[in-house]
């Protein structure tokens, strides 16, 4: 239960007790907010008192009488320089004094309430103000969290880019200083390692660009009639140069054609990530089985490997950004840690999902579903500015 503090400022004692009584047991619910929202009422009899209270400990909602002895309600309103913590002011005006109400709104009041009002009218106005206040606070909180997430993401990107760069620089220094002895093979090895690390860096940057485009919603999506079988076949062909020397068999089990409306490059990203992972994390002489299933409402892509597998804990975090399962078995496998995060985000874009079932040292099954009627390409609610990470 969330309790909001209401400060009533009025010189009529009857009004103060009336408001207190009307709000004392008043509770309501908001969608997306857990628990009831209730109120505690504090009172002040003059504008001067109100100013003091506001400076010391501002309430959530200020019910401010327009006509006060001494400092008027409008003058109090004027002195509220910043709406601290998003405090909302409701001006209480005399009936038929529309002009005062308009002035109050112009000076930053959220709403007005014309005297005389019934307890229900008061509660409705307070409910509206409270709802707006809580939603605004939630929006600010979300924006803060988003900024925080974005900062973390950028930090990890920086870290992930620094590691290969550091390795390459280290080798360059050794080559420059000729500090590894006289065996040319040692230097040849360093050049090869540098090339592998720079290739890794390139892959990371490309994955980052994919991810950024998907998340920003700025990627132009070209939804056309595609054949998923074609995308799967292309992904398998791309993976063959790595699979064949290791004695891996990669097989496709699919209907002759599997058509759906999708962005072709997005299907390619999904298929390539799944198939190349199944090859990369497989054992020599293992198998990769790619199965495509057609159903009226969705298509299912299933990629089964006979690889190193994952523990339950690893499965749980596998689809996060920059998650790379680091152990003896994966150490020499290059990856950006973004591939599966991208696959999951794309699947969700199609109203589907990406999941994994696995057993260590036996293999993994990755399942991606894509809805045949994907939700609209653009998010219905425009994102807050700055969401581009």
């Amino acid at each position, binding site marked *: 239960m969330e309790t909001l503090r209401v400060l009533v400022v009025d010189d009529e004692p009857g009004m103060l007790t009336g408001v207190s009584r009307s709000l004392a047991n008043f509770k309501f619910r908001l969608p997306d907010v857990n628990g009831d929202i209730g109120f505690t009422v504090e009172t002040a009899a003059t504008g001067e008192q109100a100013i003091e209270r506001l400076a010391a400990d501002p309430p959530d909602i200020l019910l401010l009488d327009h006509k006060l002895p001494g400092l008027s309600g409008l003058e109090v309103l004027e002195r509220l320089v910043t709406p601290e913590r998003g405090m909302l002011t409701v001006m209480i005006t005399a009936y038929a004094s529309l002009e005062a109400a308009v002035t109050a709104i112009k000076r930053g009041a959220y709403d007005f309430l014309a005297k005389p009002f019934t307890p229900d009218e008061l509660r409705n106005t307070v409910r509206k103000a409270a709802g707006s206040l809580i939603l605004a606070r939630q929006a600010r909180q979300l924006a803060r969290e988003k900024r925080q997430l974005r900062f973390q993401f950028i*930090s990890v990107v920086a870290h992930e880019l620094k*590691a290969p760069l550091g390795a390459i620089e*280290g080798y360059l220094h050794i080559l420059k200083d000729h*500090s590894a002895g006289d065996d040319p093979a040692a230097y040849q090895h360093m050049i090869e390692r540098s090339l592998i690390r720079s290739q890794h860096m390139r892959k990371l940057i490309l994955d980052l660009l994919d991810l950024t485009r998907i998340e920003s919603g700025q990627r132009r999506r070209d939804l056309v009639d595609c054949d998923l079988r074609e995308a799967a076949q292309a992904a398998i062909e791309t993976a063959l140069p790595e699979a064949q020397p290791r004695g891996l068999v990669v097989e496709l089990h699919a209907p002759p054609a599997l058509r759906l409306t999708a962005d072709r490059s997005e299907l390619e990203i999904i298929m390539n990530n799944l198939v190349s992972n199944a090859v990369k994390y497989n054992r020599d002489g293992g198998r990769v089985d790619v199965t495509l299933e057609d159903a009226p409402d969705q298509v299912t892509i299933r990629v089964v490997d006979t690889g190193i597998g994952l523990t339950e804990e690893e499965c749980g975090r596998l689809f996060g950004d920059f998650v790379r399962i680091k152990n003896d078995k994966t150490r020499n496998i290059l990856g950006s840690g973004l591939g599966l995060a991208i696959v999951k985000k794309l699947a969700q874009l199609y109203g589907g999902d990406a999941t994994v079932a696995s057993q260590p040292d036996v293999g993994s099954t990755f399942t991606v579903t894509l809805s045949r009627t994907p939700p609209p390409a653009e998010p219905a609610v425009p994102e807050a500015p700055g969401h581009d990470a």
Partner: protein
Amino acid sequence: MSKEKIVVLVDDDEDALEQLGLVLKSAGYGVRTATSREEAEELLLSVHPDLAILDLMMEHMDSGIVLCHTLKKLYPGLPVILLTAVTSATGLDLKPASAEAQSWLMADAMLDKPARPEEIRSTVARLLNEPAEVVPDHAH
């Protein structure tokens, strides 16, 4: 020359490991390497090093710190250098600012990654109480 001093290096980046190893070998140290906390713990059962250099972030954020604690328990007094790339990347400053922080981290020195070869050699020499001349191509 006295008995060869053994330095254990632990880093999950095999290139960093190779480069660091080269720096120390050329300075006349014996080098043993491990690429994970588990591998290091196994290695330390058979090898009693004179010094250890650990990467802070390996398979987990805190692998280096945990390993450092294990090492200090196993071989009290063993000098340990923690290598870290997190300082500049995440804004987290893990450098022991106070004596209390230092005692909590248990590392004898922290170096930013990538560390310069001279920096590594001079830190190792200092922690092993060796004169700087041990280092053949040391600049000073």
